[in-house]
């Protein structure tokens, strides 16, 4: 072909040298980070963003962007980003974590940051399992779902109910907070939610929290067809998609 060279359509804020990224084939992290990268490009804030990643599969994004990145202790992404934001309020801090980091070991920080109405953006990727360690039951594993440690399905009498994060954060968050749940199956909607969350932080209104429903074909042991079915049809039954708290009301 003699035409102009065709390049992959990666967001400008991605670090091209670290691609192909380290996530498994079919992993939803790539799509959440693609949405985040496009939002960073559109808002033109690449030089102001500080990106913090947690332990778990989400740490594989440590060299994902050409932005300042901190890789924190397990569950401590939220307080680290709060600290950076308080030290330099001009920065835009994005805490990126999985459901284990946000709802298990780091739930205290999520609750307290939401309660203090800290002006940061937290993006939590929910794939219903602890993926990096081999697919054990996580706080978000749905009732009856089979995982490595619940081979007969999660029994709510024994293991309790899964965590509904945005509902909880919306219940305790104050005026000015933005809380929503998106899904990688609705990419444009997820991107809109992330954009609103970052704009909410830039306006200095309050805590912004996004949960993104994501895929894990490796630990769900699903092929592409069943992966889409799970994230599109089965997960939203338990984790309804939408906006839970918007500054000034008017949830979607």
């Amino acid at each position, binding site marked *: *072909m003699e035409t102009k060279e*065709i*390049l*992959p*359509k*990666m967001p400008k804020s*991605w670090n*091209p*040298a670290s*691609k*192909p*990224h380290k*996530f*498994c*084939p*079919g*992993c*939803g*992290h*790539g*799509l959440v980070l*693609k949405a985040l990268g496009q939002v960073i490009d559109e808002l033109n804030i690449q030089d102001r963003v500080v990106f913090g990643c947690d332990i778990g599969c989400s740490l594989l994004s440590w060299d994902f962007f050409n932005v300042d990145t901190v890789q924190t202790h397990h569950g401590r992404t939220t307080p680290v980003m709060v600290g950076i934001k308080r030290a330099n309020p001009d920065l835009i801090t994005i805490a990126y974590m999985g459901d284990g980091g946000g709802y298990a070991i780091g739930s205290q920080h999520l609750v307290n940051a939401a309660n203090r109405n800290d002006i940061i953006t937290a993006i939590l990727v929910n794939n219903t399992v602890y993926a990096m360690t081999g697919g054990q039951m996580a706080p978000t594993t749905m009732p009856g779902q089979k995982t490595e440690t619940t081979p007969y399905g999660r029994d709510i009498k024994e293991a309790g109910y899964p965590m509904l994060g945005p509902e909880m954060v919306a219940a305790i968050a104050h005026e000015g907070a933005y809380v929503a749940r998106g899904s990688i199956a609705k*990419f444009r909607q997820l991107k809109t939610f992330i954009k609103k969350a970052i704009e909410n932080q830039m306006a200095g209104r309050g805590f912004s929290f996004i949960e993104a429903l994501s895929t894990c*074909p490796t630990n769900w042991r699903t*092929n*592409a*067809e069943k*992966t*889409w079915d799970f994230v599109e049809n089965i997960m939203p039954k338990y984790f309804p998609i939408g906006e839970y708290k918007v500054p000034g009301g008017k949830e979607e």
Partner: protein
Amino acid sequence: MVQKDPEYLKKAISVDVHTGKATFTIFPGLCKGCGLCREKCPERALDWSHKLGVYGTPTVSPNPELCKACRICEQVCPDCAITIRRKDKEEE
């Protein structure tokens, strides 16, 4: 920071689709063969290819007669391994 051209830029495969109005390009150096694009294609135009991707799994190739260059595959690819360029609209 001096950056050499990444390895995945080499060996890109381009196919003219939609009666020549668009170009479908797959980067086997980025494609992990997850198949998410194949399931999402509304025309069922994507099929497994003999060309192997970065993990030694099959990549995809479009059927030029079925592909309408709608860009859904480009959007759902977590690795940005697919680029579609429409020739009627001058793009960057």
